[in-house]
């Protein structure tokens, strides 16, 4: 079933390219079919707590002489992320159905979109480290083309910058993977990239610190976390809407997923040494991102920086190494993906109407688009963490978990909630309230757009009221991660790692 999902996406993408006239329908069909496939596996098992390790597992030979195989597997966590990817992918196809910006070479656009979705889905499935890296990089190529062909004015610069940042950081992860592979091979004689095989590799603390640094570099850049975010505003604002939603909503989540799935379980002891530094980065990211978001005059940039600020919560949650916080992080991954996609879709709809995204050109739109304003309010409120919507539960759990680990940083992080409230309300105020800048009769939301936004609204309410469904689905993963946080080090050893890691993080 996992290979089917990938095959449908990749073949669907090729078909879109070959039959450009029908590309929207083909894309809808391919992603929709996959969504049905994925949900069909998830739905029955979501009600019962999942005990087995993997729900579905598939393995094929790839490079047998190297010990690399096509090993795909999903548990509740990955399946959740896959369903999310496909959902947002599908809505992305629909929201850009009439988008003039991509009218040229539309088939090629959908080809890239489907391959992007395929790459992201692959990341969530891969259980072989080389395959993981392969999909990790595979995501970049379609994203690069989406930005550089259908992007905004600054698309060349934005696409190259995006590619360079993520590629460089990814290469450090590749080195870490190779080193781990060789070390494990030298210790046991078994050369393999398989996740399950490499999981128990015993490493000296300093070496583990270096390898973890390699992985984290890739993840922190992709997330992005402070101070690796300089590619973010360009890439987010220049990419076409469906691309931006996937970039902010899901590609960033692949980094969080990578940390939870690979970085923490592979280097449990080194993680403890890194945690204080990472928490600091997370909290700085929350506050700095919020400040930057508030200072923007462009709606798309504002939303981009708000996303950056929210990523700080994810870093904070992951590295507080608490069970509650893990639940919170996973909920945040889902809730943020939904709310940020909603906001980007909103920007897309506005841009189709007024041909720009500058906040100064907006104002008083409520008069002409009351329904869109109402929907916008839902996402703005979700983004600022109103109880009853998904993000609230997530951020609350993260802060509650982090509080057990580091009181001081958590207090600072909670200030981020207030800052978030300010910049989120600015969106609503500047776009929909205030003086009317231009008359836009008949510009209210169209049926297809309404359908897209309604889907997202339903999901975000569902998350707010029934977070337990998600928490249950990811329970085995959280339990496994909890084991890691219990593995404390002897004090002296920890000190060594600490000294080492402080060097590594400075690279």
């Amino acid at each position, binding site marked *: 079933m996992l290979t089917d999902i990938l095959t449908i996406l990749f073949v669907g993408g090729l078909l879109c390219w070959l039959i450009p006239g029908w590309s929207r329908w083909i894309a809808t069909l391919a992603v929709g079919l996959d969504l049905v496939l994925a949900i069909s596996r998830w739905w029955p098992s979501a009600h019962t707590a999942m005990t087995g390790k993997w729900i579905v597992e598939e393995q094929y030979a790839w*490079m047998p002489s190297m010990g690399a195989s096509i090993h795909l597997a999903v548990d509740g966590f990955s399946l959740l992320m896959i369903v999310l990817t496909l959902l947002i992918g599908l809505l992305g196809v629909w929201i850009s159905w009439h988008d003039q910006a991509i009218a040229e070479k539309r088939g090629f656009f959908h080809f890239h979109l489907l391959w992007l979705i395929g790459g992201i889905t692959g990341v969530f499935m891969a259980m072989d480290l080389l395959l993981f890296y392969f999909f990790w990089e595979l995501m970049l*190529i379609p994203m690069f083309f989406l930005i550089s062909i259908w992007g905004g004015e600054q698309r060349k610069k934005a*696409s190259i910058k995006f*590619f360079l940042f993520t590629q460089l950081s990814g*290469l450090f992860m590749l080195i870490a993977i*190779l080193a781990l*592979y*060789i070390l494990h091979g030298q210790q046991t004689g078994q050369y393999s990239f398989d996740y399950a095989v490499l999981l128990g590799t015993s490493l000296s603390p300093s070496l583990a610190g270096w390898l973890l640094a390699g992985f984290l570099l890739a993840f922190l850049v992709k997330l992005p976390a402070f101070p690796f975010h300089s590619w973010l505003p360009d890439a987010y604002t220049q990419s076409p809407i469906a691309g931006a939603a996937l970039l902010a909503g899901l590609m960033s989540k692949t980094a969080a997923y990578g940390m939870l799935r690979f970085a923490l379980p592979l280097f449990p002891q080194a993680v403890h040494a890194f945690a204080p530094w990472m928490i600091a980065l997370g909290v700085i990211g929350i506050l700095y991102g919020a400040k930057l978001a508030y200072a923007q005059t462009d709606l798309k940039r504002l939303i981009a920086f708000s996303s950056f600020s929210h990523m700080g919560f994810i870093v904070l949650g992951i590295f507080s190494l608490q069970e509650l916080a893990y639940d919170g992080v996973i909920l945040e991954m889902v809730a943020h993906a939904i709310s940020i996609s909603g906001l980007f879709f909103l920007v897309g709809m506005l841009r189709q109407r007024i041909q720009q995204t500058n906040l100064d050109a907006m104002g008083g739109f409520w008069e002409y688009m009351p329904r869109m304003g109402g929907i916008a309010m839902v996402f703005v409120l979700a983004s600022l963490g109103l109880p009853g919507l998904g993000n609230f539960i997530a951020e609350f759990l993260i802060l509650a978990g982090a509080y057990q680990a580091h009181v001081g940083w958590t207090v600072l992080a909670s200030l981020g909630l207030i800052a978030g409230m300010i910049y989120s309300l600015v969106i609503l105020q500047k776009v929909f309230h205030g003086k009317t800048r231009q008359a836009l009769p008949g510009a209210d939301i169209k049926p297809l757009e309404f359908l897209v936004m309604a889907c997202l609204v339903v999901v975000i309410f569902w998350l707010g009221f029934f977070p337990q469904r998600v928490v249950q689905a990811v329970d085995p993963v959280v339990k496994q991660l909890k084991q890691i946080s219990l593995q404390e080090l002897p004090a002296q050893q920890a000190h060594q790692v600490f000294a080492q890691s402080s060097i590594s993080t400075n690279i």
Partner: protein
Amino acid sequence: MWHQQVIPALFPQIILSVAAVVCMLLIAVKRNHAVVHLFTLLSLLLALGSLGRIPGVMGVDGLFVVDGLGVFMTGLILITAFFIGIFSYPYFSQSVLEREEYYILLLLATLGASLMVISNHFISFFLSLEILSVSLYGMIAYTKTSTVATEAGVKYLMLAAVSSAILLFGIGLMYVATGQLGLSGIGRQAVYTPTSGWFTAGLGLVLAGLGFKLALVPFHLWTPDVYSGAPAPTSAFVATISKGSVFVFLWRLFDSIGRDERMVIIFVVIAVASMLIGNWLALKQQNLKRLLAYSSIAHLGYLIVAFVAAGDRGLDAAIFYLVAYFISMLGAFGLISYLTESGKEKLLLQDYTGLFWQRPALAILLSLIMLSLAGIPLTAGFIGKFYVLLAGVYSAQWLLVMVLILSSVIGLFYYLRVVVQLFSRPDHAVYFPRSPYAISTGMAFLVLFILLIWLGIAPGNLITQIQQVVHLARG
């Protein structure tokens, strides 16, 4: 030892020699471009077909050794020459000059290269090198009405002659120190006289000579001029076959004399310099052929990383890397030849603006080639880079590994610049010619395209194949 089995082992080289003579006779009888072209392709195929019946490692009078490595590389060279032959036809059809002799030179150069990869002796190496180089002088300056081509030819002639002289001097000194010219003999003697001044000086000179042929920093200055001045099919030859075959000899040489500490340091310095300087200088290039020239300097630097890593892993990595690099470079220069319009090559990057909107298939192939050169997944180049990195990490060459990563990101920048150029919307109407000889070239592009993707996704077969070759090479 000279016995019956030697002849079949040398069939490809024999066929190439005969083909060159027959080709000359064909031209003497009647000039016909198509006939000569087809004959060349057929004889290359015939030589390729005569490979593969080799019973194992076979020495030929201490001059040659036909082992797995040699056979594999001969095959690679023949296939590459075949592609270059295909690309040459539309390219030279537009030229008003006598075009037929080009194919004699192509066959001879291929003969030289295929002899070099089985050379096991300085004499056989030097002779094959001269066959290769002298044919290349002609191939580079072949469009003799073009001043840049002539200039490139003369430059190559001067530098190749000087580097040959340096090489010869080095060989002489090594002979003084060891009394041997065969690689295995030198290897035996090198154990006893590791620190002899003559030997070291000789080795240094040989290294400089080989460095010239491989265009490694600091012996790289000729590369951009020659690449951009030469006809595109010739540039492809210089970038691929000529370098690959010298690299194999370099490998054989150091396999027999051993890589001692000092040598490793020298190679580390050369590799670091080539990777960084090659990529750095490519950054500012506006000329696609010069860009490829600098990029090839960097790629040879990556190969030297595998060379320093040594061992079976290093050799596996180097061979795979060569295959990926050959495919990419062939495709790139093939495209340049194909888009040549009435003898005028499209050199500048801006000439390629908007290629995607006119000829999407070509633009996608060129993008894929650029991504492969940059080592991005889905392409053969990625597996190649991955393999080299693996070899580097395995032998704990951290400096090289880190420089490789940094420089490949520098490299990525200019490869992406090319890609972005292809996809940007042109300001004015652009026109890309449709060559009348598109079928064979189109097929060749298709094959390269499939190979690039295939080796990028499922390299398992080739890797296994190469590993077997390496084992055969070690007896």
